[in-house]
């Protein structure tokens, strides 16, 4: 089985976000990057499937040279090789176009990625990739088992779960608890040194969105505690101060 796992390099979840260039760009100074957490789950499941069924796991990242630590970590976790498309991944359509271009050259049985990246949280890439390749795309997948050419999938839906069966090849957006996310060990990091990482130039440059500007959510206001027995005061404050009733 040939599996492609698409990973993002995103700011650590504790990063303090600020902007530059008249609020149109993320200020990258001092930001530490991690693998997209949902992508981590996708990769962990891919490595488990490889252990069960054999085959290969290739990691794909659309990013500039500074994403190499994230790619090396994926190789250390158990991917066999990696491809980096040398471009700044600012737009979902552009990223999907890169993934589709790589996928067309290689017959992957599964194309896995996180349900969404945690920087822009678009959650669109898997759907666009599916359309571009003419393959079914399913998200968010929380359980995935493979039997022959069939995939048994559990997907989260509003208020419940959806159990599906689909034929490979497929494009899947993944989330927990599809696998236990893996921490690479030091021997894995050592062996990642010799695994191939191919850098390719982007196919096309169809950025369809333009950033007009970013703004931060308003700072959290101070909390006022009202004792449970003073519900009337709460109602009155919600009317007069918060003006939400």
């Amino acid at each position: 089985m040939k599996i492609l796992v698409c990973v993002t390099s995103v700011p650590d979840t504790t990063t303090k976000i600020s902007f530059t260039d008249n609020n149109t760009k993320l200020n990258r100074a001092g930001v530490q990057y991690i693998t997209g957490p949902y992508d981590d789950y996708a990769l962990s499941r891919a490595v488990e499937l490889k252990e069960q069924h054999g085959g290969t796991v290739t990691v794909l990242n659309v990013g500039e040279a500074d994403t190499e630590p994230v790619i090396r970590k994926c190789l250390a976790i158990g991917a066999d090789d990696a491809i980096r498309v040398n471009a700044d991944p600012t737009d979902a359509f552009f990223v999907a176009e890169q993934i589709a271009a790589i996928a067309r050259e290689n017959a992957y049985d599964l194309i896995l990625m996180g349900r969404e990246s945690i920087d822009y949280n678009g959650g669109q890439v898997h759907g666009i990739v599916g359309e571009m390749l003419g393959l079914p795309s399913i998200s968010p997948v929380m359980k995935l088992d493979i039997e022959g050419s069939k995939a048994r999938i559990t997907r989260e839906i509003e208020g419940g779960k959806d159990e599906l069966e689909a034929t490979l090849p497929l494009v899947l957006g993944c989330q927990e608890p599809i696998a236990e996310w893996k921490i690479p060990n030091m021997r894995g990091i050592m062996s990642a040194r010799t695994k191939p990482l191919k850098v390719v130039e982007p196919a096309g440059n169809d950025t369809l969105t333009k950033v007009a500007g970013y703004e931060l959510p308003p700072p959290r206001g101070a909390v006022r505690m009202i004792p449970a027995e003073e519900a009337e005061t709460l109602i009155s404050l919600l009317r007069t101060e918060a003006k939400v009733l």
Partner: protein
Amino acid sequence: MANNTSFESPDLYGIDDLLSPEHKVVRASMRDFVNREIIPVIEDYAQRAEFPTFMPRKFGEIGAFGPTLPADYGGGELDAISYGLMMQEIERGDSGMRSCVSVQSSLVMWPIFTYGSEEQKRHYLPKLAKGEMMGCFGLTEPNQGSDPAGMQTRFVEKRDHFVLNGSKLWITNGPIADLAVVWAKNEQGRIRGLLVERGMEGFSTPEIHHKWSLRASSTGELVFQEVRVPKENLLPGSDGLRSPLACLDQARYGIAWGAVGAAMDCYASALRYALERRQFGRPIASFQLVQKKLAEMATEITKAQLLCWRLGVLKNEGRATTAQISLAKRNNVEMALNIAREARQIHGAMGITGDYPIMRHLMNLESVITYEGTHDIHLLILGSDITGIPAFK
């Protein structure tokens, strides 16, 4: 959230730019490991003064034991900076946990790798790397701390074996160890290394209780009463005090990095608390006296990071000297201890509780500033290096 990486280390001087992608992967992996395996449980173990016995296997799985040794012996073939970053992350969790790893890697695996026979390396190192076997290092004695040359533990040759007598004190991992690297004098008064295994008759490892420091670490005594040690358990390459002292250089190097981790954890907790805690209608982080503390902490951490990085580069090039290592160990542990104390003040009364890691780090660091060469002895090592006149002979 999916990922457990809930710590971002301070990097005021862009020191991350000096790290390779592999260094960053090593740090991120150990950070995730510490967040997942150590931080959720360590306070409880420390409060109960209990060593988490499941931890050696976990350290073995992640590859924390002997990470710089060749893969043939179970190592990870990582460089000195990667090793340092691992120590930093583990000590961010707890100095006792870092002590456990330091001893196994620098004071047990390193001397076996450096002074051991090929048979000894093949027999012991892979098991030690996996955490299937734990080791300890016996140099300090009840009457010989800073002056190990005066050690009283001795062995004599009897036909096909040696007979070992004496005792060692303040031995990290002693009570849980399967193997002890013991430094003792032969009949000619020459210091040699012996591998003493648990189960050898006359060898016992009583535990030291009632510590106020390194409470989650297992510390004890090694007692040798007429212990018969097979001759093949002598470390053939060990010869003289120089041999154990070279091991200490390895361990002290790791401590210099580890102390930065403890300092980072105290600083991060103090910064978070100062931003959240409100007095006089505003966060205490807005007051000049609190800002002074935080700014000084960040400054000292930055200086210590630079010391570590440069020392790591020198070590990778095989140029790090004992005096340079002493300078970094001494400076960084004192820095961490001062930051822990200041952080305790910023946390106010909350700082004394186990809800915050501050007092645990603070008490741990009181050991770290004394073991592996006391704070004063490191000055004398530097003093000797600068003047050419040893003050301790």
